């Protein structure tokens, strides 16, 4: 094969291999700062065991085992942590660091969650919410905790 043809095939292969990963995930919204026990990040394209330093993306779902716990910090400086037997979806997240505008919806399906709110809640009243199966929490600030009982 001519070297130019080979180079083209290589270039096209690179585009096809790299594009789906970059396109599907969108911007980084948070970083894992602490973990213990079993913690899984459920996302399109495969589940991963959460490690300190990993980045999280909109729509990621955090699942903790009976011994699991995780702490993450969002790009707006909101801090969130989750205890054992929990499931939390990072349902919606938008943040513009140039004017601090944004919106954040966390879907708390079961378990325990604590938060210290950051720039989104401070700059845009009503923009930060935690949804549970039975009620919706609106965050004015700053420190709070939510427990959702799982199926019995």
């Amino acid at each position, binding site marked *: 094969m001519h070297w130019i043809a080979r180079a083209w095939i290589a270039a096209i292969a690179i585009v096809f291999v790299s594009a789906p990963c970059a396109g599907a995930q969108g911007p980084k919204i948070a*970083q894992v700062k602490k*973990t213990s026990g079993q913690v899984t990040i459920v996302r399109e394209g495969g589940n991963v065991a959460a490690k300190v330093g990993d980045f999280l993306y909109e729509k990621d779902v955090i699942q903790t085992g009976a011994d699991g*716990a995780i702490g993450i910090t969002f790009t707006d400086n909101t801090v969130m942590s989750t205890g*054992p037997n929990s499931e939390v979806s990072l349902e919606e997240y938008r943040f513009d660091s140039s004017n601090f505008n944004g919106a954040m919806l966390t879907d708390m399906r079961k378990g325990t969650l604590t938060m210290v709110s950051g720039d989104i809640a401070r700059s845009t009243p009503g923009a930060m919410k935690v949804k549970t199966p039975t009620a919706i*929490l609106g965050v004015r600030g700053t*420190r709070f905790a939510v427990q959702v009982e799982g199926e019995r």
Partner: protein
Amino acid sequence: MHRIILALTLLLTLSACASRQALFTVLPNPDGSAGAVTVDDGQKSVVLDKPYAASEIVKGSAQPVAMDDAQVQQIFGSALAARPILPSHFRLYFNNDTDVMTPDSERLYKSVFDDIKQRPVYEVEVVGHTDTTGELKHNQELSLTRAGSIREKLIHDGLDPKSISIAGRGPLDLRVKTGDNVPEQLNRRVEITVR
């Protein structure tokens, strides 16, 4: 006998229904104050705005419930233990129309590294600002130059370039509100957030 079973079943069903579906509580700030949250159960919205003010959902309805530190530790202890170190903020000041820090700020700059040492992983945001003297375009460039010079210094002093992001806001986000063309030391600054 049937009646007893029926009564027992009814009692069990009732007590199962009466169990807590969700719990929301405000936690105190380190200074003892508290923020506020609202809880909306679809019928009504309640405001919780004191330390340990709490609401539980029973049969889909929000009702007040007593909460204290001991109960919070029992229910949320593992989650609280997993809470990351909170983000830290540093404000560095500059001499007029330069990217040279004031002596006090040089000392504060060094404490950024003490903060980072406590963190297993870190991200650093550097945002430059100016006062309102001079042209807007010049100031936007100057604010970015200030942020860039701090970024270079942080990298020179050992931080990972991949962990640092920078931005320049010119005179658009004044710390002290002034009119146009007012020299103001407190506005000539770089704000560093470590998280």
